[in-house]
């Protein structure tokens, strides 16, 4: 890998960039620095020498700039994301280079190793209380080096002591499970997809030392081989070399490149929808299968989405009015609602739960030409009463990220502000609840073992369940506690006294008529570890905004914030953006008409709620909730008609960065 000749071209490029350091792409302060050790000097560490997309995804051949790359979904379902793939770079690896000058008196070989770390979604490397110690969560950061962790430091060819810089090059790629942890293996197979590379900015650190420091274990084994642990924990090389013992090692330098790489996941909604055979394996199930939706090998390997099949909780059964109506378009009013609420006998009702499709691909479609997915809650007719949920789920798990969905989901309210019963949900859910995807231990009382159940259920230290939600529906706010529930008068079924059965809603509910509640929830499984863990209504501040977080009781598994927003704006416009910014220590929910006009509608952090750190998938759904989940709601799902016509939604973009 070493090239003995001085890379004059490289130098020339560097010089040009240096001169143009105030030009776009060459950030001020990117001026190469030298790292000086007793026997050598390092400079011009270029981590992505052969990748030429700048941070705005434009072709740019400058060397000392930050760059970006989109995750390649080809075959990523089975092998995990690889950065870069052979589709992106012929050699399938990034090439890095640096210059080294031997300042000793004799020619020598040196040893080097490259490290990368995701910077966007990491814990600081040092303990905030004692910067000489590693942050207790820094080992969770996504860092890596050579894919083969057994390949420790690599020797350079002999570098002459000629007072000149010599170029050294190497290659690497970013893959999942970079520490090759057995936790992510299935038997002998390293399932790198179980710990996929995170999105966001990656930094690169070059460590150069002498062979003696390697063979003499001056640099310890656990730093030469990052798969090894020390004191039962992994040691983050960024901590070790930049803040820990490695910082002051003789003849060892760690150079962090100012150039970084931005990794973006952008699954194409037009690239197909896979259908899991576990739900649908009979031939009759497949009548709506097509090239872009089904169970073909091609879709299995490459489709970025699946049809989402909801788990239907049988306890959510409700006795629904037997009315079929197009609430959104047929002028369904509160008076209609009130009459239907009062004047159907039990015998006339239809017992249902929300349902899921019998025929996959009937209610979801991937449209390659428009790079979109369409979904629809099917309309129904007499005898086929159903409130069918619909949605899609991504197939490639990620930890953290700014998950942005551009979508036009169905309007929820009609012009009389009557609700059609649907909840539009954009949410993240654990990729699997298996051991490999367990969340960080909860060290105070543990997590509730299951996501369902009561407050007195079993607690366990580890759990695989995680969920972060946008659930948008017509309901009421929970906080402050003195507003819940509104004082409803449910009226009486007296048809000869209009004011007895057609009772208006409370004035505050009417005043909020055109709004829907954007509910932002983190399922922390009632882990009591956060220092400000509490039940009831409590405020939390973020950038001058105050949010009310609500938890029913200390055994309740989720913390929710609600913000009223106009239905017409979110779902009546051409599209809207919904963003879950899931960070190691906080979650920020944003919405807006465009990416540059997002506003914060929810905020939680690790002082009040355990933030998940396992791998999650994105789901976008239009679903019928039993309103017993939404205490105080003005409308009961059971009193809302079955949909007469299909209720469509469209998903245009999904980006995780």
């Amino acid at each position: 890998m070493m090239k003995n000749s001085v890379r004059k071209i490289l130098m020339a490029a560097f010089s040009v960039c240096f001169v143009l350091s105030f030009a776009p792409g060459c950030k001020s302060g990117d001026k190469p620095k030298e790292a000086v050790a007793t026997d050598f000097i390092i400079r011009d560490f270029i981590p992505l020498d052969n990748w030429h997309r700048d941070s705005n995804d434009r072709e740019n051949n400058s060397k000392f700039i930050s760059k970006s790359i989109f995750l390649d979904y080809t075959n990523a379902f089975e092998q995990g994301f690889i950065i870069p793939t052979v589709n992106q770079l012929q050699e399938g690896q990034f090439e890095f280079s640096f210059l080294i000058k031997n300042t000793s008196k004799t020619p020598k070989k040196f040893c080097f190793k490259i490290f990368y770390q995701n910077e966007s979604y990491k814990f600081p490397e040092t303990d905030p209380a004692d910067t000489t110690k590693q942050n207790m969560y820094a080992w969770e950061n996504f860092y890596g080096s050579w894919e083969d962790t057994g390949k420790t430091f690599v020797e350079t060819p002999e570098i002459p002591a000629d007072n000149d810089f010599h170029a050294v090059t190497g290659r690497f790629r970013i893959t999942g499970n970079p520490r090759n942890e057995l936790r992510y293996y299935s038997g002998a197979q390293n399932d790198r997809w179980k710990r996929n590379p995170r999105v966001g900015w990656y930094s690169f650190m070059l460590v150069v030392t002498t062979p003696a420091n390697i063979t003499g274990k001056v640099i310890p084994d656990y730093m030469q081989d990052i798969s090894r642990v020390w004191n039962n924990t992994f040691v983050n090389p960024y901590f070790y070399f930049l803040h820990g013992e490695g910082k002051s090692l003789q003849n060892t330098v760690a150079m962090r490149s100012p150039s970084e790489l931005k990794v973006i996941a952008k699954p194409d909604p037009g690239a197909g929808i896979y259908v899991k055979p576990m739900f649908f394996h009979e031939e009759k199930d497949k009548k709506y299968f097509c090239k872009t939706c089904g169970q073909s090998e091609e879709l299995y390997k490459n489709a970025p989405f699946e049809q989402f099949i909801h788990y239907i909780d049988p306890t959510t059964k409700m006795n629904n009015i037997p009315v079929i109506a197009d609430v959104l378009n047929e002028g369904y009013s509160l008076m209609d609602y009130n009459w239907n609420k009062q004047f159907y006998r039990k015998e006339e009702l239809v017992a249902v739960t929300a349902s899921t499709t019998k025929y996959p691909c009937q209610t979801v479609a991937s449209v390659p030409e428009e790079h979109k997915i369409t979904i629809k809650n099917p309309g129904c007719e007499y005898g086929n009463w159903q409130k069918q949920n619909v949605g899609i789920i991504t197939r490639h798990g990620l930890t953290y990220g700014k998950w942005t969905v551009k979508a036009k989901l169905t309007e929820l309210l009609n012009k009389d502000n009557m609700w059609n019963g649907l909840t539009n949900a954009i949410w993240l859910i654990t990729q699997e609840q298996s051991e490999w995807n367990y969340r960080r231990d909860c060290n105070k009382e543990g997590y509730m073992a299951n996501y369902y159940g009561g407050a007195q259920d079993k607690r366990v230290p580890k759990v695989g369940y995680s969920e972060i939600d946008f659930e948008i529906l017509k309901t009421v706010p929970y906080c402050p506690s003195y507003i819940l529930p509104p004082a409803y008068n449910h009226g009486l079924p007296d048809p000869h006294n209009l004011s007895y059965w057609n009772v208006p809603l409370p004035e505050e509910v009417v005043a909020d008529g055109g709004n829907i509640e954007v509910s932002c929830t983190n399922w922390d499984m009632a882990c009591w570890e956060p220092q400000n863990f509490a039940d009831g209504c409590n405020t939390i501040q973020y950038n001058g905004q105050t949010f009310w977080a609500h938890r029913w009781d200390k055994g309740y598994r989720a913390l929710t914030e609600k913000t009223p927003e106009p239905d017409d704006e979110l779902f009546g416009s051409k599209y809207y953006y919904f963003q879950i910014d899931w960070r190691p220590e906080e979650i920020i929910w944003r919405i807006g008409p465009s990416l540059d006009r997002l506003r914060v509608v929810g905020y939680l952090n690790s002082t009040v709620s355990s933030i998940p750190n396992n791998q999650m998938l994105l789901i976008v759904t239009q679903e019928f909730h039993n309103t017993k989940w939404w205490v105080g709601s003005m409308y009961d799902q059971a009193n809302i008609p079955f949909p007469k016509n299909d209720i469509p939604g469209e998903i245009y973009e999904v980006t995780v960065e």
Partner: protein
Amino acid sequence: MKKLQKRLIIILSAVILCAIIVIAGVKYIPVRKLLHISAPPEKDFVNLKQNSNEAPDALFFDMEIDPTKSQSNKFYKGIAHSGQYSAKAFGKNTYSFSVERKVSDICKGKKLDAVSMSTWVYSFPGKNEPWGAFVFAVNNSMGVNICWKGIQVSGKQVPRGKWFKISGMFDLSDIKIDPSCTIQIYFWNNSNTDFLVDDYYIVFGKQQERKGDTTITDMTRDPVFHSKFNTPPYPVFYFEKQESGNENAALVSNQILQGHFISSQGGREDIFLGGGNSPARLLSYCSGEFTEVKLNIPAEISSCLRSGNAITGCFQNSGNSMILFSGDKGSFLAGFEKSGNPCSGKEATMKIVWRSAGKDPFGKGKIVACDIDNNRITEILSIANDGSWKIFRYSGGQNGNWKVISSSQIVDFWNNKDQLSVISGRFLQKYSYDVLLTIFKDKGSRVYQYSLLRFDAASGRFLPCFAEKRKGFGRTVGIDTLKPGDIFFTGIFDKSGTPKVLRYNRDWRYDLKEIRFNDTTFQVISNIDFKGYDRDHNPKYYESLRILSGQFLEPGINTLFLVAKNKKTVTYLPDAAGTYSWRKEK
């Protein structure tokens, strides 16, 4: 130690202990919270009517007080959520105006199982942190508090210097609350921040369970619906509103009759409006709207329209409908002189063609107009209380008279019933003439029964249409039972030409269904609803809905003429009349 010293120490200790108990009691036991608070008399309120909210089981207090009354010092003028006054709770351990009610007065026999309440609160700005509660308390007949619930308002987040609403609901189903108990609702200020409260709204009780026993159709057990005979839910068919104009003339009439009064038998039916305080009117559908035909009506008829009963029918072979009035002063038969085209604008003159000479020839029993022998002439069936009957036919002509064409022995179905209704109509397709649907309840029975009878001219008897083994009774299958108060409409409602039977029941809610009689029973085909009305003014929502069925818009096809009214004027649901035609789509 001397005895005296010991005593002194004991006494001193006891005094100190008592003092500690008293101080701790004051501090930690919510004595004031549980105290009975006397309320100002509610008659001091200005808006007493408004305070008794229209919605059921609810109280509303807007705090608008007569300032001359003794309790006005409990109220604050100038800062109010509504009106001018609000109730004060100034200073620590103070109470606002308190609502007091005996449970027996608010629950009227029902269990007080929940209370929902709301009020508007104004917390004055200041340094002290506010702490208050909107309290619901129950004292038993001995004055002992048995329930205390509060909606707490406290903390730094409480808005200051502006009105905000608080609300809550308390489930009381676990608490034994006797009718003799007294409830109190008030705002308790337990802080040094002053509060105002306004517009109490209190709702007693939980949402009532729906009527009925149990839900029958369970799609979670079997996702494929198997329709069962006479088992709901039924399909819904719709009648759609037609633009016909001027129907609202019917709103002021309490006598609405239909028939071919001036139009010919093959034409559209007219609507004759009488009674009430407005003059009689005749509406005929011309050029897309109901047009009022100029009338010339004898005063005698006009007065009778206001008080008497009227039956319509084609009592003569002219094909035109006539009206048989019966009142205190006897009966008379009247009809319009033929005017040709009802849309010609010509005046229509009504004339009396027959008058009873004193005593009504039909007796005092039940009178049914029917064409029992398919001769297209309406006969009058008169049924006496003992089940005996006579059939009258009008002989026609200038000196016409009613003649008994048949009479016979007692019909058991009509004999001495607790409730009885006899309706004529084309209930069975196999008979081209009217049959009689008899619905009744035997004395002492809770069961409604029914039968279909047809007149057999040869034997001069009424014969049951249902199987003999059931002794002519029709079976009732399912929860839908025919009732004597039901109104039936038969006829052809769409181009298919298939006759339909509609049954309208208003015992409870609006309930219009299409049914079909067969040899043993009746089958419920569908529910009938409406489409095309203005805004959300579905006719079925009105407190009163009168339905007529006739060929108002199109010869040969029945439409419904609906007159929908409420007892009081309601701006969001104004009284309305309109015509509705069968709509093809479900």
